[in-house]
Protein backbone atom coordinates (compact mmCIF):
# COMPACT_ATOMS: atom_id res chain seq x y z
CA UNK A 1 0.00 0.00 0.00
CA UNK A 2 2.85 2.37 0.74
CA UNK A 3 4.17 1.47 -2.67
CA UNK A 4 0.88 2.78 -4.06
CA UNK A 5 1.33 6.07 -2.18
CA UNK A 6 4.80 6.30 -3.65
CA UNK A 7 3.27 5.68 -7.10
CA UNK A 8 0.81 8.54 -6.62
CA UNK A 9 3.52 10.92 -5.39
CA UNK A 10 5.76 9.92 -8.27
CA UNK A 11 3.03 10.73 -10.80
CA UNK A 12 2.75 14.20 -9.31
CA UNK A 13 6.39 15.15 -9.13
CA UNK A 14 8.17 13.22 -11.89
CA UNK A 15 8.32 16.09 -14.40
CA UNK A 16 9.25 18.58 -11.69
CA UNK A 17 12.01 16.25 -10.50
CA UNK A 18 13.29 15.86 -14.04
CA UNK A 19 13.30 19.65 -14.48
CA UNK A 20 15.26 20.07 -11.26
CA UNK A 21 17.81 17.45 -12.31
CA UNK A 22 18.26 19.22 -15.64
CA UNK A 23 18.76 22.55 -13.89
CA UNK A 24 21.37 20.99 -11.60
CA UNK A 25 23.15 19.38 -14.53
CA UNK A 26 23.23 22.70 -16.38
CA UNK A 27 24.80 24.35 -13.34
CA UNK A 28 27.28 21.49 -13.15
CA UNK A 29 28.22 21.82 -16.81
CA UNK A 30 28.59 25.56 -16.45
CA UNK A 31 30.89 25.17 -13.43
CA UNK A 32 32.97 22.44 -15.03
CA UNK A 33 33.40 24.43 -18.24
CA UNK A 34 34.40 27.54 -16.30
CA UNK A 35 37.07 25.63 -14.40
CA UNK A 36 38.45 23.95 -17.47
CA UNK A 37 38.47 27.31 -19.28
CA UNK A 38 40.51 28.87 -16.48
CA UNK A 39 42.99 26.00 -16.42
CA UNK A 40 43.39 26.08 -20.20
CA UNK A 41 43.59 29.80 -20.77
CA UNK A 42 45.04 31.41 -17.66
CA UNK A 43 47.11 30.81 -14.56
CA UNK A 44 45.28 28.41 -12.28
CA UNK A 45 47.69 29.24 -9.43
CA UNK A 46 46.20 32.74 -9.21
CA UNK A 47 42.76 31.17 -9.27
CA UNK A 48 43.66 28.73 -6.50
CA UNK A 49 45.02 31.61 -4.48
CA UNK A 50 41.71 33.44 -4.85
CA UNK A 51 39.72 30.40 -3.86
CA UNK A 52 41.84 29.66 -0.80
CA UNK A 53 42.68 33.11 0.53
CA UNK A 54 39.99 35.41 -0.84
CA UNK A 55 37.38 32.72 -0.22
CA UNK A 56 35.67 33.12 -3.55
CA UNK A 57 33.38 30.22 -4.44
CA UNK A 58 33.46 28.57 -7.86
CA UNK A 59 30.24 26.70 -7.06
CA UNK A 60 28.15 29.65 -5.89
CA UNK A 61 25.59 28.93 -8.63
CA UNK A 62 24.53 26.03 -6.43
CA UNK A 63 23.61 28.31 -3.57
CA UNK A 64 19.85 28.71 -4.02
CA UNK A 65 19.16 25.78 -6.32
CA UNK A 66 18.46 23.25 -3.54
CA UNK A 67 16.10 25.76 -1.94
CA UNK A 68 14.25 26.15 -5.21
CA UNK A 69 14.17 22.37 -5.65
CA UNK A 70 12.60 21.94 -2.20
CA UNK A 71 9.90 24.50 -2.92
CA UNK A 72 9.13 23.04 -6.34
CA UNK A 73 8.85 19.45 -5.13
CA UNK A 74 6.67 20.54 -2.25
CA UNK A 75 4.45 22.55 -4.59
CA UNK A 76 3.96 19.76 -7.09
CA UNK A 77 3.33 17.26 -4.35
CA UNK A 78 1.01 19.19 -2.10
CA UNK A 79 -0.69 21.78 -4.24
CA UNK A 80 -2.85 19.10 -5.97
CA UNK A 81 -3.63 17.75 -2.51
CA UNK A 82 -4.96 20.97 -1.09
CA UNK A 83 -6.68 22.25 -4.20
CA UNK A 84 -10.33 21.24 -3.79
CA UNK A 85 -9.34 19.60 -0.47
CA UNK A 86 -8.11 16.52 -2.29
CA UNK A 87 -6.14 15.62 0.81
CA UNK A 88 -9.41 14.21 2.15
CA UNK A 89 -9.06 11.42 -0.40
CA UNK A 90 -5.61 10.55 0.87
CA UNK A 91 -6.75 10.65 4.49
CA UNK A 92 -9.64 8.36 3.62
CA UNK A 93 -7.26 5.64 2.44
CA UNK A 94 -7.41 2.62 4.74
CA UNK A 95 -4.16 3.36 6.56
CA UNK A 96 -3.14 5.24 9.64
CA UNK A 97 -3.43 8.93 8.78
CA UNK A 98 -0.07 9.90 10.21
CA UNK A 99 1.69 7.22 8.25
CA UNK A 100 -0.08 8.31 5.04
CA UNK A 101 1.21 11.85 5.47
CA UNK A 102 4.65 10.81 6.68
CA UNK A 103 4.96 8.46 3.72
CA UNK A 104 4.12 11.25 1.33
CA UNK A 105 6.77 13.43 2.96
CA UNK A 106 9.25 10.56 3.03
CA UNK A 107 8.78 10.07 -0.69
CA UNK A 108 9.48 13.73 -1.46
CA UNK A 109 12.42 13.72 0.93
CA UNK A 110 13.90 10.65 -0.71
CA UNK A 111 13.48 12.17 -4.16
CA UNK A 112 15.20 15.37 -3.08
CA UNK A 113 17.96 13.45 -1.33
CA UNK A 114 18.52 11.33 -4.42
CA UNK A 115 18.78 14.43 -6.62
CA UNK A 116 21.09 16.14 -4.12
CA UNK A 117 23.34 13.11 -3.75
CA UNK A 118 23.52 12.75 -7.50
CA UNK A 119 24.61 16.35 -7.97
CA UNK A 120 27.04 16.15 -5.04
CA UNK A 121 28.56 13.09 -6.68
CA UNK A 122 28.96 14.94 -9.98
CA UNK A 123 30.64 17.88 -8.24
CA UNK A 124 32.83 15.52 -6.23
CA UNK A 125 34.18 13.92 -9.40
CA UNK A 126 34.75 17.33 -10.96
CA UNK A 127 36.47 18.79 -7.88
CA UNK A 128 38.78 15.80 -7.56
CA UNK A 129 39.71 16.27 -11.19
CA UNK A 130 40.71 19.92 -10.78
CA UNK A 131 41.78 20.19 -7.13
CA UNK A 132 43.31 18.26 -4.24
CA UNK A 133 40.94 16.51 -1.85
CA UNK A 134 41.08 19.41 0.66
CA UNK A 135 38.91 21.40 -1.72
CA UNK A 136 36.31 18.66 -1.74
CA UNK A 137 36.02 18.75 2.04
CA UNK A 138 35.54 22.51 1.90
CA UNK A 139 32.92 22.14 -0.83
CA UNK A 140 30.96 19.60 1.20
CA UNK A 141 31.01 21.70 4.37
CA UNK A 142 30.16 24.90 2.54
CA UNK A 143 27.27 23.49 0.54
CA UNK A 144 25.87 21.36 3.39
CA UNK A 145 23.70 24.21 4.78
CA UNK A 146 22.41 24.94 1.27
CA UNK A 147 21.31 21.38 0.70
CA UNK A 148 19.95 21.26 4.23
CA UNK A 149 17.98 24.41 3.43
CA UNK A 150 16.51 22.61 0.43
CA UNK A 151 15.25 19.74 2.56
CA UNK A 152 14.07 22.04 5.33
CA UNK A 153 12.10 24.31 3.02
CA UNK A 154 10.52 21.20 1.52
CA UNK A 155 9.29 20.10 4.95
CA UNK A 156 8.21 23.59 5.93
CA UNK A 157 6.51 24.40 2.63
CA UNK A 158 4.62 21.12 2.80
CA UNK A 159 3.23 21.94 6.22
CA UNK A 160 2.41 25.44 5.01
CA UNK A 161 0.45 23.97 2.10
CA UNK A 162 -1.48 21.58 4.31
CA UNK A 163 -2.21 24.19 6.99
CA UNK A 164 -5.92 25.01 6.57
CA UNK A 165 -6.00 28.49 8.05
CA UNK A 166 -4.98 30.97 5.43
CA UNK A 167 -3.40 34.30 6.19
CA UNK A 168 -2.76 34.30 9.89
CA UNK A 169 -1.37 30.81 10.38
CA UNK A 170 0.22 30.37 6.98
CA UNK A 171 1.75 33.80 7.10
CA UNK A 172 3.29 32.99 10.46
CA UNK A 173 4.62 29.66 9.24
CA UNK A 174 6.06 31.44 6.20
CA UNK A 175 7.75 34.00 8.44
CA UNK A 176 9.18 31.30 10.67
CA UNK A 177 10.44 29.46 7.61
CA UNK A 178 12.10 32.53 6.14
CA UNK A 179 13.66 33.32 9.51
CA UNK A 180 15.06 29.84 9.97
CA UNK A 181 16.20 29.41 6.38
CA UNK A 182 18.02 32.75 6.50
CA UNK A 183 20.08 31.40 9.38
CA UNK A 184 21.32 28.66 7.04
CA UNK A 185 22.39 31.28 4.53
CA UNK A 186 24.12 33.54 7.06
CA UNK A 187 27.56 32.73 5.76
CA UNK A 188 30.47 34.43 4.12
CA UNK A 189 33.35 32.65 2.45
CA UNK A 190 33.67 28.92 2.95
CA UNK A 191 33.41 26.32 5.73
CA UNK A 192 31.24 28.62 7.86
CA UNK A 193 29.14 25.84 9.29
CA UNK A 194 32.06 23.51 10.01
CA UNK A 195 31.45 23.59 13.76
CA UNK A 196 27.67 23.90 13.83
CA UNK A 197 26.12 22.10 10.86
CA UNK A 198 25.15 19.16 13.06
CA UNK A 199 23.04 21.40 15.28
CA UNK A 200 21.19 22.85 12.32
CA UNK A 201 20.82 19.38 10.89
CA UNK A 202 19.16 18.27 14.13
CA UNK A 203 16.80 21.26 14.18
CA UNK A 204 15.84 20.70 10.54
CA UNK A 205 15.16 17.01 11.11
CA UNK A 206 12.72 17.96 13.82
CA UNK A 207 10.99 20.33 11.42
CA UNK A 208 10.27 17.39 9.13
CA UNK A 209 7.37 16.32 11.34
CA UNK A 210 5.81 19.80 11.47
CA UNK A 211 3.40 18.71 8.75
CA UNK A 212 1.71 16.43 11.29
CA UNK A 213 0.43 19.45 13.18
CA UNK A 214 -0.89 21.02 10.00
CA UNK A 215 -2.55 17.72 9.11
CA UNK A 216 -4.12 17.47 12.55
CA UNK A 217 -5.49 20.98 12.07
CA UNK A 218 -6.68 20.11 8.56
CA UNK A 219 -8.48 17.07 9.93
CA UNK A 220 -10.08 19.02 12.74
CA UNK A 221 -11.33 21.45 10.13
CA UNK A 222 -9.92 24.65 11.58
CA UNK A 223 -11.05 27.23 9.05
Amino acid at each position, binding site marked *: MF*KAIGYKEWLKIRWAALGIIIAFILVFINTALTLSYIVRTSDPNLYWNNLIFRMSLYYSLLKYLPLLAGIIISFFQFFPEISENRLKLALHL*PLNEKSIILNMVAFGTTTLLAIFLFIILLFTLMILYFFPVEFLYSFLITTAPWFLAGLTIYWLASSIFVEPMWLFRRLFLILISIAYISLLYASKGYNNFEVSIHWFFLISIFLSVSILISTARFKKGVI
Partner: protein
Amino acid sequence: MEYAVECKNLTHYYGKRLIYENMSFNIKKGSIFGLLGKNGTGKTTTINILNGYLKPKSGQCLIFGEDSQKLSPQTKANVGFLMEGHIQYNFMNISQIEKFYAQFYPKWNNAPYWELMSLLKVLPEQKLSSMSCGQRSQVALGLILAQDPDLMILDDYSMGLDPGYRRLFIDYLTEYTKGRDKTIFITSHIIQDLEGFVDDIVILDYKNVLLSSTIDDFKNNFRRFRFILTNKSHQKIEKDATITNFEIIKNNIFIYSFSDINKVRTYLQSKNISVKDLEEIPMTLEDAFIGLTGKY
Protein backbone atom coordinates in the same frame (compact mmCIF):
# COMPACT_ATOMS: atom_id res chain seq x y z
CA MET B 1 -25.21 -4.17 15.38
CA GLU B 2 -28.23 -2.62 13.83
CA TYR B 3 -26.96 0.73 12.61
CA ALA B 4 -24.25 1.56 10.11
CA VAL B 5 -24.20 5.20 11.17
CA GLU B 6 -25.32 6.81 14.41
CA CYS B 7 -25.10 10.53 14.94
CA LYS B 8 -25.91 11.89 18.34
CA ASN B 9 -26.60 15.49 19.29
CA LEU B 10 -24.39 17.05 16.64
CA THR B 11 -23.90 20.75 17.14
CA HIS B 12 -21.62 22.79 14.96
CA TYR B 13 -20.68 26.39 14.44
CA TYR B 14 -18.38 28.02 11.93
CA GLY B 15 -17.07 30.83 14.03
CA LYS B 16 -20.30 32.23 15.46
CA ARG B 17 -22.57 30.98 12.68
CA LEU B 18 -24.71 28.12 13.90
CA ILE B 19 -25.02 25.27 11.40
CA TYR B 20 -27.25 23.05 13.49
CA GLU B 21 -27.86 22.18 17.05
CA ASN B 22 -28.42 18.74 18.58
CA MET B 23 -29.00 16.94 15.32
CA SER B 24 -29.39 13.18 15.69
CA PHE B 25 -30.10 10.48 13.17
CA ASN B 26 -29.36 6.81 12.65
CA ILE B 27 -28.93 4.85 9.47
CA LYS B 28 -29.97 1.23 9.55
CA LYS B 29 -27.66 -1.28 7.93
CA GLY B 30 -28.83 -2.07 4.42
CA SER B 31 -30.89 1.10 4.08
CA ILE B 32 -30.50 4.13 1.87
CA PHE B 33 -30.52 7.44 3.62
CA GLY B 34 -30.89 10.84 2.01
CA LEU B 35 -29.77 14.06 3.61
CA LEU B 36 -31.50 16.86 1.77
CA GLY B 37 -31.44 20.58 1.97
CA LYS B 38 -30.52 23.67 0.08
CA ASN B 39 -26.92 24.68 -0.36
CA GLY B 40 -25.36 25.98 2.83
CA THR B 41 -27.57 24.08 5.24
CA GLY B 42 -24.83 21.80 6.50
CA LYS B 43 -24.93 18.73 4.27
CA THR B 44 -21.21 18.74 3.52
CA THR B 45 -20.52 19.68 7.13
CA THR B 46 -22.25 16.49 8.19
CA ILE B 47 -20.29 14.46 5.65
CA ASN B 48 -17.04 15.98 6.90
CA ILE B 49 -17.92 15.09 10.47
CA LEU B 50 -18.87 11.56 9.39
CA ASN B 51 -15.53 11.07 7.66
CA GLY B 52 -13.53 12.62 10.47
CA TYR B 53 -12.47 15.73 8.51
CA LEU B 54 -14.20 18.02 10.94
CA LYS B 55 -14.54 17.96 14.66
CA PRO B 56 -18.04 19.06 15.69
CA LYS B 57 -18.36 21.55 18.54
CA SER B 58 -20.25 18.85 20.40
CA GLY B 59 -21.86 15.52 19.71
CA GLN B 60 -20.49 12.42 18.07
CA CYS B 61 -20.91 10.19 15.05
CA LEU B 62 -20.30 6.47 15.06
CA ILE B 63 -19.60 4.54 11.90
CA PHE B 64 -19.97 0.79 12.38
CA GLY B 65 -19.70 1.58 16.07
CA GLU B 66 -16.42 3.52 15.76
CA ASP B 67 -15.93 7.18 16.61
CA SER B 68 -15.81 8.98 13.26
CA GLN B 69 -12.90 11.14 14.46
CA LYS B 70 -10.73 8.06 14.92
CA LEU B 71 -11.70 5.59 12.24
CA SER B 72 -9.54 2.50 12.01
CA PRO B 73 -8.05 1.57 8.63
CA GLN B 74 -10.32 -1.51 8.52
CA THR B 75 -13.42 0.65 8.85
CA LYS B 76 -12.16 3.17 6.32
CA ALA B 77 -11.63 0.30 3.87
CA ASN B 78 -15.29 -0.53 4.30
CA VAL B 79 -16.52 3.01 3.62
CA GLY B 80 -16.72 4.38 0.10
CA PHE B 81 -16.50 8.13 -0.14
CA LEU B 82 -17.58 10.36 -3.00
CA MET B 83 -16.32 13.89 -2.54
CA GLU B 84 -18.51 16.85 -3.40
CA GLY B 85 -17.90 17.70 -7.04
CA HIS B 86 -16.63 14.17 -7.79
CA ILE B 87 -13.12 15.26 -6.87
CA GLN B 88 -10.50 12.64 -7.65
CA TYR B 89 -6.81 12.63 -8.47
CA ASN B 90 -7.08 14.46 -11.75
CA PHE B 91 -3.36 14.19 -12.42
CA MET B 92 -3.86 10.48 -13.02
CA ASN B 93 -5.33 8.79 -16.05
CA ILE B 94 -8.16 6.33 -15.74
CA SER B 95 -5.98 3.24 -15.71
CA GLN B 96 -3.46 4.75 -13.27
CA ILE B 97 -6.15 5.67 -10.79
CA GLU B 98 -7.62 2.16 -10.90
CA LYS B 99 -4.17 0.68 -10.41
CA PHE B 100 -3.60 3.05 -7.49
CA TYR B 101 -6.77 2.34 -5.53
CA ALA B 102 -6.69 -1.40 -6.24
CA GLN B 103 -3.76 -1.82 -3.90
CA PHE B 104 -5.64 -0.48 -0.89
CA TYR B 105 -8.81 -2.53 -0.85
CA PRO B 106 -8.88 -6.29 -0.27
CA LYS B 107 -12.29 -6.68 -1.92
CA TRP B 108 -11.27 -4.71 -5.01
CA ASN B 109 -13.21 -5.77 -8.09
CA ASN B 110 -12.43 -3.72 -11.17
CA ALA B 111 -15.20 -5.13 -13.39
CA PRO B 112 -17.81 -2.43 -12.62
CA TYR B 113 -15.17 0.27 -13.04
CA TRP B 114 -14.15 -0.82 -16.53
CA GLU B 115 -17.76 -1.44 -17.45
CA LEU B 116 -18.55 2.20 -16.65
CA MET B 117 -15.42 3.37 -18.44
CA SER B 118 -16.37 1.46 -21.58
CA LEU B 119 -19.66 3.35 -21.59
CA LEU B 120 -17.76 6.63 -21.51
CA LYS B 121 -15.80 5.86 -24.67
CA VAL B 122 -12.54 7.12 -23.20
CA LEU B 123 -9.06 5.66 -23.63
CA PRO B 124 -7.30 4.16 -20.61
CA GLU B 125 -4.59 6.83 -21.04
CA GLN B 126 -7.01 9.71 -20.77
CA LYS B 127 -6.22 11.99 -17.87
CA LEU B 128 -9.00 12.89 -15.46
CA SER B 129 -8.16 16.56 -15.80
CA SER B 130 -9.14 16.42 -19.47
CA MET B 131 -12.54 14.86 -18.82
CA SER B 132 -15.92 16.51 -18.42
CA CYS B 133 -17.62 16.79 -15.07
CA GLY B 134 -20.06 14.03 -16.00
CA GLN B 135 -17.29 11.70 -17.11
CA ARG B 136 -15.37 12.32 -13.92
CA SER B 137 -18.45 11.52 -11.88
CA GLN B 138 -18.51 8.10 -13.56
CA VAL B 139 -14.84 7.57 -12.72
CA ALA B 140 -15.51 8.42 -9.09
CA LEU B 141 -18.57 6.17 -9.03
CA GLY B 142 -16.71 3.34 -10.73
CA LEU B 143 -13.94 3.51 -8.16
CA ILE B 144 -16.41 3.28 -5.29
CA LEU B 145 -18.22 0.38 -6.89
CA ALA B 146 -14.90 -1.44 -7.39
CA GLN B 147 -14.02 -0.85 -3.77
CA ASP B 148 -17.23 -2.71 -2.82
CA PRO B 149 -17.71 -1.07 0.59
CA ASP B 150 -20.58 -1.82 2.96
CA LEU B 151 -21.23 1.88 3.49
CA MET B 152 -21.14 4.55 0.81
CA ILE B 153 -21.04 8.20 1.66
CA LEU B 154 -21.95 10.23 -1.40
CA ASP B 155 -21.68 13.98 -1.09
CA ASP B 156 -23.90 15.82 -3.55
CA TYR B 157 -23.54 13.30 -6.36
CA SER B 158 -25.79 15.43 -8.58
CA MET B 159 -23.59 18.50 -8.53
CA GLY B 160 -22.82 19.68 -12.05
CA LEU B 161 -24.41 16.67 -13.69
CA ASP B 162 -27.03 16.81 -16.40
CA PRO B 163 -30.18 14.68 -15.89
CA GLY B 164 -28.87 11.74 -17.94
CA TYR B 165 -25.79 11.28 -15.79
CA ARG B 166 -27.87 11.75 -12.63
CA ARG B 167 -30.18 8.98 -13.73
CA LEU B 168 -27.23 6.76 -14.68
CA PHE B 169 -25.70 7.32 -11.28
CA ILE B 170 -28.81 6.30 -9.39
CA ASP B 171 -29.41 3.34 -11.71
CA TYR B 172 -25.97 1.99 -10.98
CA LEU B 173 -26.39 2.46 -7.27
CA THR B 174 -29.76 0.72 -7.33
CA GLU B 175 -28.24 -2.18 -9.20
CA TYR B 176 -25.34 -2.29 -6.76
CA THR B 177 -27.43 -2.47 -3.62
CA LYS B 178 -30.01 -4.87 -4.94
CA GLY B 179 -30.18 -7.92 -2.74
CA ARG B 180 -26.98 -6.98 -0.91
CA ASP B 181 -26.60 -5.65 2.57
CA LYS B 182 -25.23 -2.25 1.48
CA THR B 183 -25.87 1.05 3.21
CA ILE B 184 -25.86 4.35 1.37
CA PHE B 185 -25.72 7.84 2.79
CA ILE B 186 -26.47 10.32 0.07
CA THR B 187 -26.87 14.08 0.12
CA SER B 188 -28.59 16.09 -2.54
CA HIS B 189 -30.57 19.21 -3.18
CA ILE B 190 -32.66 17.53 -5.85
CA ILE B 191 -35.28 15.39 -4.13
CA GLN B 192 -37.13 14.03 -7.16
CA ASP B 193 -34.06 12.10 -8.34
CA LEU B 194 -34.13 10.13 -5.12
CA GLU B 195 -37.77 9.14 -5.35
CA GLY B 196 -38.08 5.39 -5.23
CA PHE B 197 -34.42 5.11 -4.26
CA VAL B 198 -33.97 6.33 -0.72
CA ASP B 199 -35.71 4.89 2.31
CA ASP B 200 -35.29 7.54 4.99
CA ILE B 201 -34.72 11.24 4.55
CA VAL B 202 -33.68 14.12 6.71
CA ILE B 203 -34.27 17.60 5.37
CA LEU B 204 -32.07 20.33 6.75
CA ASP B 205 -32.75 24.02 6.95
CA TYR B 206 -30.44 26.77 8.09
CA LYS B 207 -29.87 26.11 11.79
CA ASN B 208 -32.17 23.11 12.23
CA VAL B 209 -33.69 19.89 10.95
CA LEU B 210 -36.97 20.43 9.10
CA LEU B 211 -38.06 16.87 8.63
CA SER B 212 -37.04 13.38 9.44
CA SER B 213 -39.19 10.91 7.58
CA THR B 214 -39.48 8.78 4.44
CA ILE B 215 -40.06 10.12 0.96
CA ASP B 216 -43.46 8.40 0.69
CA ASP B 217 -44.68 9.80 3.99
CA PHE B 218 -43.50 13.21 3.00
CA LYS B 219 -45.14 13.01 -0.39
CA ASN B 220 -48.41 11.71 0.98
CA ASN B 221 -48.76 13.95 4.00
CA PHE B 222 -47.35 17.26 2.97
CA ARG B 223 -50.03 19.47 1.35
CA ARG B 224 -50.44 22.84 -0.27
CA PHE B 225 -53.57 24.98 0.10
CA ARG B 226 -54.59 28.22 -1.49
CA PHE B 227 -57.09 30.87 -0.50
CA ILE B 228 -57.89 34.37 -1.60
CA LEU B 229 -56.89 37.38 0.37
CA THR B 230 -59.79 39.58 1.45
CA ASN B 231 -58.50 41.82 4.20
CA LYS B 232 -55.38 42.38 6.19
CA SER B 233 -55.96 39.53 8.60
CA HIS B 234 -53.31 37.50 6.75
CA GLN B 235 -50.72 39.44 8.65
CA LYS B 236 -51.48 37.15 11.56
CA ILE B 237 -50.23 34.10 9.63
CA GLU B 238 -46.99 32.76 11.01
CA LYS B 239 -45.05 29.51 10.86
CA ASP B 240 -46.01 27.13 13.65
CA ALA B 241 -46.88 23.50 14.28
CA THR B 242 -49.69 23.50 11.75
CA ILE B 243 -48.50 25.98 9.18
CA THR B 244 -45.13 24.67 8.05
CA ASN B 245 -44.63 27.39 5.50
CA PHE B 246 -46.63 30.01 3.60
CA GLU B 247 -46.28 32.26 0.60
CA ILE B 248 -48.15 35.33 -0.53
CA ILE B 249 -48.27 35.87 -4.27
CA LYS B 250 -50.38 38.95 -5.18
CA ASN B 251 -53.69 38.23 -3.45
CA ASN B 252 -53.24 34.45 -3.30
CA ILE B 253 -52.07 32.91 -0.10
CA PHE B 254 -50.41 29.48 -0.18
CA ILE B 255 -50.22 27.46 2.99
CA TYR B 256 -48.00 24.38 3.33
CA SER B 257 -48.93 21.93 6.04
CA PHE B 258 -48.84 18.33 7.16
CA SER B 259 -52.52 18.64 8.19
CA ASP B 260 -55.56 18.00 6.02
CA ILE B 261 -57.82 20.74 4.62
CA ASN B 262 -60.34 20.67 7.43
CA LYS B 263 -57.79 21.01 10.14
CA VAL B 264 -56.14 23.87 8.34
CA ARG B 265 -59.49 25.65 7.87
CA THR B 266 -60.42 25.25 11.52
CA TYR B 267 -56.99 26.36 12.57
CA LEU B 268 -57.06 29.50 10.41
CA GLN B 269 -60.52 30.39 11.60
CA SER B 270 -59.47 29.93 15.19
CA LYS B 271 -56.90 32.61 14.57
CA ASN B 272 -59.56 34.91 13.08
CA ILE B 273 -58.08 34.83 9.62
CA SER B 274 -60.68 35.27 6.93
CA VAL B 275 -60.48 32.34 4.53
CA LYS B 276 -62.06 32.51 1.12
CA ASP B 277 -62.04 29.68 -1.46
CA LEU B 278 -59.66 27.43 0.49
CA GLU B 279 -58.60 24.56 -1.75
CA GLU B 280 -55.84 21.99 -1.92
CA ILE B 281 -53.42 22.37 -4.83
CA PRO B 282 -51.66 19.11 -5.80
CA MET B 283 -47.86 19.16 -5.79
CA THR B 284 -44.97 17.27 -7.34
CA LEU B 285 -42.22 16.07 -5.02
CA GLU B 286 -40.09 18.97 -6.11
CA ASP B 287 -42.88 21.44 -5.32
CA ALA B 288 -43.24 19.85 -1.91
CA PHE B 289 -39.51 20.09 -1.26
CA ILE B 290 -39.44 23.75 -2.23
CA GLY B 291 -42.60 24.35 -0.27
CA LEU B 292 -40.98 22.89 2.80
CA THR B 293 -37.60 24.50 2.52
CA GLY B 294 -38.69 27.81 1.02
CA LYS B 295 -37.44 29.44 -2.10
CA TYR B 296 -34.77 31.50 -0.44
